């Protein structure tokens, strides 16, 4: 790859292999790079081990989302979803198992797929797409069984609330919608930007990250990152982070969030920002914790750079993988 292309590359998505020894990262040129964590984390690792063991072009557009279940890697780009077998990928065989495309209505521009999440209850894949809808793909039969309509702008992010059989989606229109996964009906709609405590009109109203943990929800974007109690549907704490957050995750008793700005923010549930750990890219798109393997338990973050920063300890950056 030419140095100029490397210079303008962004990493949008990451996913760890089921064995936890590999990391797949998708970039803005539609490529997926496979890094060997086992090699990069070994004591005698060299600079060559921080390069991908395999790079292949998966899609035409940027790879906005990557997801792994116990045998396949699912990648989303340019309006289509492809599945790749992990065992084949580790043997460096690059051939998609299948490629599917939701039923879009609009014609001129192919809507992108911004987010995917697995719903283990009925083995389905929930897809947040650029046509303002959430599509549900039945992985058993390989067909799109439902379309959740209601958002007025494109869907940024989706997540699953397993216990309640609910799906959540955050959208550019500023709303977080909760859907009943069985009926496909919209249960609730929270317009976050209308809450004064969260709203930041200077940025905008879109919601770019949503994640849940039992009765709690984290959401942020144009409005500041906030923790919500879902039963009462009310915000409980705001996190005073500058810039828009693009991904957040619950980790033990803390919240990790990334977004604009070259750092990973560590927040306490109460609303304080505990630490901001610097990293290489000037803004971050994705954060991923490897829980698949106890030996390679790391945090990786990617953003507007060809580097993927690796944190073996949450409090400092250990090294960078790079395309």
């Amino acid at each position, binding site marked *: 790859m030419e140095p*100029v*292309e490397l210079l303008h590359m962004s990493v949008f998505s990451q996913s760890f292999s089921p064995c936890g020894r590999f990391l797949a990262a998708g970039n803005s040129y539609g490529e997926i790079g496979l890094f060997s964590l086992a090699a990069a984390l070994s004591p005698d690792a060299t600079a060559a081990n921080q390069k991908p063991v395999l790079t292949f072009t998966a899609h035409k557009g940027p790879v906005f989302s990557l997801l792994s279940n116990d045998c396949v890697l699912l990648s989303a780009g340019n309006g289509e979803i492809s599945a790749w077998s992990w065992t084949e990928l580790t043997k460096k065989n690059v051939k998609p198992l299948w490629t599917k495309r939701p039923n879009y209505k609009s014609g001129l521009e192919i809507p992108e797929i911004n987010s995917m999440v697995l719903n283990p209850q009925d083995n389905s894949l929930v897809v947040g797409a*650029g046509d303002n809808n959430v599509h549900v793909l039945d992985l058993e039969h390989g067909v799109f069984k439902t379309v959740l309509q209601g958002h007025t702008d494109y869907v940024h992010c989706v997540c699953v609330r397993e216990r309640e059989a609910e799906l959540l989606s955050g959208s550019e229109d500023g709303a977080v919608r909760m859907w009943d996964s069985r009926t496909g009906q919209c249960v609730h709609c929270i317009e976050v930007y209308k809450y004064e405590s969260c709203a930041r*009109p200077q940025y*905008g109203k*879109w919601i*770019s990250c949503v994640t849940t943990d039992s009765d709690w929800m984290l959401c942020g974007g144009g409005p500041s990152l906030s923790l919500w109690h879902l039963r009462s549907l009310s915000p409980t704490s705001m996190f005073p982070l500058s810039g828009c957050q693009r991904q957040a995750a619950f980790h033990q008793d803390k919240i990790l969030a990334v977004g604009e700005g070259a750092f990973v923010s560590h927040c306490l549930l109460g609303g304080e920002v505990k630490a901001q750990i610097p990293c290489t890219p*000037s803004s971050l798109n994705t954060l991923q914790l490897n829980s698949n393997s106890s030996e390679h338990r790391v945090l990786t973050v990617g953003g*507007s750079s060809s580097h993927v920063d690796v944190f073996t300890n949450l409090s400092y950056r250990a090294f960078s993988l790079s395309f």
Partner: protein
Amino acid sequence: MSSDALKKRKSKVLRTEGGTPEVKRGRGDADPQDVRVYNEEVELDSKDPAQDYAQYKESCESLAKLMSEIQELKASGAKEGSTEVEQKRMQSCILFMNLKKLNRLAHMRLKRGRDQTHEAKQKVDVLHLQLQNLLYEVMHLQKEISKCLEFKSKHEEINLVSEEEFYQDAPTEISRPQHTKNDPHQLTLARLDWELEQRKRLAEKYKDSQATKEKIQKSIEVKKEHLRSLQPGLNAIMQASLPVQEYLSMPFEQTQKQAEVARHLPPPLYVLFVQANAYSQACDKNLSVSINGDVDEAKALSKPPDDSQDDESDSDAEEEQEKTKRRRPTTGGQLDDKRREMIKRHPLSLCVDLKCKDGSTLHLFFYYLMNLNIMTVKTKVSTSTDLSMAISAGELLKSDTLLSCLYSSDQGRETPNPANRYQFDKVGIVSFADYVEDLGYPYMWVQNLGGLHFPGETSEGMLVGSSLSASHMESTMKLLRGRVQSRLALHKQFASLEHSIVPISSECQNLFPAKIISRLTRWTTISHQEFMDLPYTRHVTDAGLSKETDLYFMGVIERGTARLHAAVVLSPRYPEISPLFSVSLNWKGECSGRTDDNLRAIESEVNVFKNELQGPRPGHQLLTNQIARLCVCLDVYLETEGQDDSVEGPREFPREKMCLRTVRGPNRLKPFKYNHPQGFFSHR
């Protein structure tokens, strides 16, 4: 009474003792005294000392006897002045007198003895002196003799013919065997005579030979004169034939002349000359080669090497002498001279003119540095049309950047010959780069064209001589032509960029929407340092994409209150390597490609997706197309910013571009891609 008189006499005697020892006898008459003294002296001769001694003993005994008789008399009571005593006294007085005389004689005898001894001693001394003189004479004579014995004759150094040969060859009147057979001295003399005779004969012979030689030389001179007189005639004939040659379009004369001059070219320039001529005849009629410089000087240089070396050393010595005369030479001055000597160029140089289709010509001047064994090149571009002076284009056609990096990383600032490093160390040249301005640039391809090959870190195979030159000629000439054309194109473009016009050719119209509102307001050149100091170019420098050899520019694009700064890295190999833009937007605060994902997307729009902007081959319009694209992207950026409908009041930038969606994807990028026939903007 008589005793008184005696006393008186005694005292008298005492008084006159020294002068007259015989006062007692000479009382009454003083005249015969001399006779008496004389007598005494005579008496001395006649008397025997032994007799005197006996007399003395006798006198002393009788005196002692008289004394004792007087004493006896006295003791027996004789009266003072009795006759007996008186008599006795008289007798003793006489005895005293006698003793006195004896004493005197003894003294005189002693004196005489002494005188005699002295005389004898003087005689001995004279004799001793004589003896010494004689001894000295003997020694001197002995020395003379030994000197004579050591004498060497000159004839011993002369190599003589052996004795047998002498008897064989020499006539009998010289050899005289009857005399010489037995007498070695005569033999030697005879042999010397023979030697002299022979030498005389040889001298005669030598004189004869000299005379014939002179004669022959004179005849040669005459013949030469004759031949020389033929030259003007021949020249006249040649001159007369010139119109005929021209008429028949057969430039024998010129090519011959050039070939004649080319013989004096140093080998690398000769290889280049031959190859360039061959190439121009075979493939490229627009390439012409000529030789410049002082032929005579070159001729002097191409003389046999030992001669020239002598000359050099002589002149060096003279120079040094001169210097010492003037002043004690400082080491600095000497080093300067040595440096100048080291970087000396061959007096002949090669000029290759490369004509392009549009009438512009690239003049390449090739030089050969004799002592460094490398070739250098200088360039000049002449154009058919007068180039309007664009300030920012000043660097483009300059000798130092025009040919930089013709082949990748061939900057021509350091000498390609590794041996030069050691030569430089000797004379204290730190870097060849200080001299390229004067001497020209020693690019690798120049060495290759001249058939010089230096093993470097990146050398693959060894190619030698003219085959090496031939293998590079075509590709290099193509590259040179491409380089000049791209520079001339850039030159023209810069002239209009400085007048805030972004030229877009008709072929490229479809790359951009019809209406572009953002305008380029400034286009200036900046230095490498200025570029590095910009806060938003750090990533480019860190990625190693801005090099010292690159050219740097700053463009400012404005629309309304928004102002976009674009720092541009232009590689000397443009358009093969595309320009690299880094942008920073000054609108409602400062943001750059580092802080704003959309500006980063704009950067990648012009830097990464440059292939769409290439235009017709070979892509001379890439830079202007990139700038135009930047203007379009700024339009889109500004028009789609601040979508929030809740904000009241008129917008600064009304939406004019047609966009399907204003934002897309997780990082909410704006649609920067233009779709031609439909005229809308979409996302990548």
